[in-house]
């Protein structure tokens, strides 16, 4: 059932109803109806989120934005676009690339994940390292508050980028759909860089690869992306798609530099030196735009390839200070080994953002619990190392209990104050982000039988 979960499939709940409005006015009518009947409302895009953030834990009405999918206006002079909330991320870049522009945030889900969903989780992607996440590229949006009032937050479609008063736009981005339903968004468009240097660097060990990443950052070079893939994931991708990745590599890095043609090769030389210093076995530059596209396709196919080697998997999303990358990689391998589970790693290594993929089989008794334990141990270690439980996937229901590990009761209380200003009744996407007694009682990490 589509609406019983998102891409985090360890827990499932069905809503009482699903509404798919076609306009802001229709959203307002649904929201007001829910307000009258005190029903939970759950805004939902295409359900690509990875933390159970659109689960109807208490029932209620899912308000899907998939029919709000028009690009309303592109303002080339001011490098902005006005789009509806359900427009998939990639549609924006596709609409403007002929004019040398792009929408910078590039989550792996970008062909299907929606702009409002990107706002809910402050989505990032491989290129966040240089370009920042969603919050750096969304100027403003409207929002239907849980009582039905429509407010515009941040820059209006024809207004300046600085707005009087508190930064409500900034406060909403990353709030996991708990403040209201967004229907229209003003995004910032960036000039597409003219020059790229992308290469695949092959290492004998994940250790060498992660040290290379730390060294490049420490040398004062910020590539636009540095993506790490370890041996299990490299093999899985190669088995599935035959990109020509080395099957025996300990780990590979995809490093991309971008900017102007002038000076870029000297930067590339410095990066190459640092790779060699850390025992890089092979450096394969992408020589054509097609080869570059193939490298990125290979990275973004990672999750698709896992389905072939494990019946189920859960992905984590912790972040550590970049210098702690080698340490957390060791921890991940040890944690999985102790529990007898398989694990593969992709990581936005330049950001210190890990994505260990833990394999399990829900048909084997105890496997789900083990995967959950492994996953939780990794995230806890990230927090201990001075990092965070999630870099881009969000807390949702999955990591709600871990919020109390990362933050104090007073920190969480301050967040609740913000939530109350938007949603005094706590009806919008309830039971997410905050530790809640309810979910503890009901949580039973196994597949529920689909209706």
């Amino acid at each position, binding site marked *: 059932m589509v609406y019983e979960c998102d891409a985090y499939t360890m827990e499932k709940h069905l809503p009482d109803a699903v509404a798919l409005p076609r306009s802001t006015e229709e959203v307002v009518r649904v929201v007001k109806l829910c307000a009258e009947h005190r029903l939970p409302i759950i805004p939902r895009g295409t359900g690509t989120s990875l933390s159970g953030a659109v689960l109807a834990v208490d029932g209620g009405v899912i308000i899907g934005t998939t029919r709000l999918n028009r690009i309303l206006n592109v303002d080339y*002079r*001011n490098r902005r676009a006005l789009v509806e909330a359900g427009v998939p991320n990639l549609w924006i870049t596709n609409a403007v690339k002929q004019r040398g522009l792009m929408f910078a945030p590039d989550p792996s889900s970008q062909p299907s994940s929606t702009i409002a969903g990107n706002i809910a*989780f402050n989505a*990032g992607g491989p290129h966040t390292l240089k370009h*920042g*996440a969603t*919050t*750096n590229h969304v100027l403003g949006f409207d929002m239907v508050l849980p009582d039905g009032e429509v407010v*515009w937050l941040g820059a209006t479609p024809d*207004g*300046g*980028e600085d*707005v*009087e008063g*508190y*930064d*409500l736009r*900034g*406060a909403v*981005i*990353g709030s996991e759909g708990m403040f209201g339903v967004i229907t229209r968004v003003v995004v910032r468009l960036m000039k597409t860089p*003219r020059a790229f240097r992308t290469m695949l660097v092959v290492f004998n060990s994940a250790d060498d690869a992660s040290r290379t990443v730390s060294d490049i*950052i420490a040398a*004062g070079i910020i590539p636009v992306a540095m993506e790490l893939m370890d041996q299990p994931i490299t093999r899985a991708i190669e088995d599935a798609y035959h990109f020509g990745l080395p099957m025996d590599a300990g780990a590979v890095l995809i490093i991309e530099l971008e*900017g*102007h*043609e*002038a000076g*870029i090769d*000297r*930067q590339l030389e410095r990066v190459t030196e640092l790779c060699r210093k850390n025992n890089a076995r092979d450096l394969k530059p992408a020589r054509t735009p097609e080869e570059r596209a193939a490298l990125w396709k290979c990275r973004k196919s990672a999750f698709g390839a896992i389905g072939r080697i494990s019946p189920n998997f859960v992905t984590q*999303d912790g*972040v550590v*200070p*970049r*210098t702690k990358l080698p340490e957390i990689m060791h921890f991940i391998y040890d944690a999985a080994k102790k529990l007898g589970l398989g694990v593969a790693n992709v990581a936005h290594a330049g*950001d*210190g*953002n890990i994505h260990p993929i833990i394999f399990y089989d829900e048909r084997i008794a105890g496997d789900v619990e083990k995967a959950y334990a492994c996953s939780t141990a990794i995230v806890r270690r990230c927090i201990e190392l*001075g*990092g*965070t439980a*999630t*870099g*881009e*996937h*969000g807390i949702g229901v999955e*990591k709600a209990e871990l*919020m109390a590990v*990362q*933050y104090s009761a*007073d920190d969480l*209380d*301050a*967040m609740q*104050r*913000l*939530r109350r*200003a938007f949603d005094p009744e706590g009806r919008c996407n309830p039971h997410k*982000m905050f530790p809640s007694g309810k979910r503890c009682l009901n949580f039973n990490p196994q597949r529920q039988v689909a209706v």
Partner: protein
Amino acid sequence: MSIVAYAPDDLTVTVTADTTLAALQQHLAPRNQWLPMDPPNPTRLTIGEIVDCDLSGPRRYGYGTVREHILSMRAEMADGRMIKSGADVVKNAAGYDLCRLFTGARGELATVEEICFKVQPRPEAEQFGKVTFPTVEAACEFVEKLDTTELTPTVLDLHNANGAGPWTVVVGFAGTREEVDWQCKQTGLLAAVADTKLDYDEQLWATTATGPVHKLSVLPSKLAATIAAMRGVSALVARAGNGVIYYRGEDQGTGLAPAARLMQRLKHEFDPANKLQARRA
């Protein structure tokens, strides 16, 4: 006033709010790093003031405002409790972004005490050029022309010292020596560029004789028309690339804050007894 923690290899630094911007930059300089921000009066201005009042300078066009550089903060709530928001790593999606909410809130919601920033390597080269025009329209036409090229300036300003006379467009580039040289050369093909400094911004803020500095934010495409319609302005500096105008003289009025009811509810939630008054830099 202190640097609480500095991890140069992670490109992060944590400072107390009463640290001046100049002191912070000095601390980062030996590792050839900086916080790429340049609001006026860095030797006097504290990090707390920059965060509370969301202050920025000419390099805003290339590097963004202060909220783009904040990773986490400690703040004192109105009831005296200390809280932390964010995490000291470059990416964090855990919890609501109170850092952004508190930035620019003038201390009305909480008192910011400590801030963790992501810092950047200093660019290898940086260069600024100016082009002078007789009218604001001609100046803005040049800005627009520059914008349609592949050039990526980090500064794109427009200024006028006394409300009349020539209009100066300032263009700045930063990066590797090669890319800065190439971009300067390309700009030179569009107009006669002379080397310049960014001291005009300090000058606007330094003069105290003519009352406060006001601010207007418009679409960049409406910059020329907006400025042409302004009356009684004695000095003006605009972030032409951003559409933000700072000026002295008669207040031209600003837009009303949107979502007023929501903002009132927010203020009430964070400071029910109305203890926290607005700070001015």
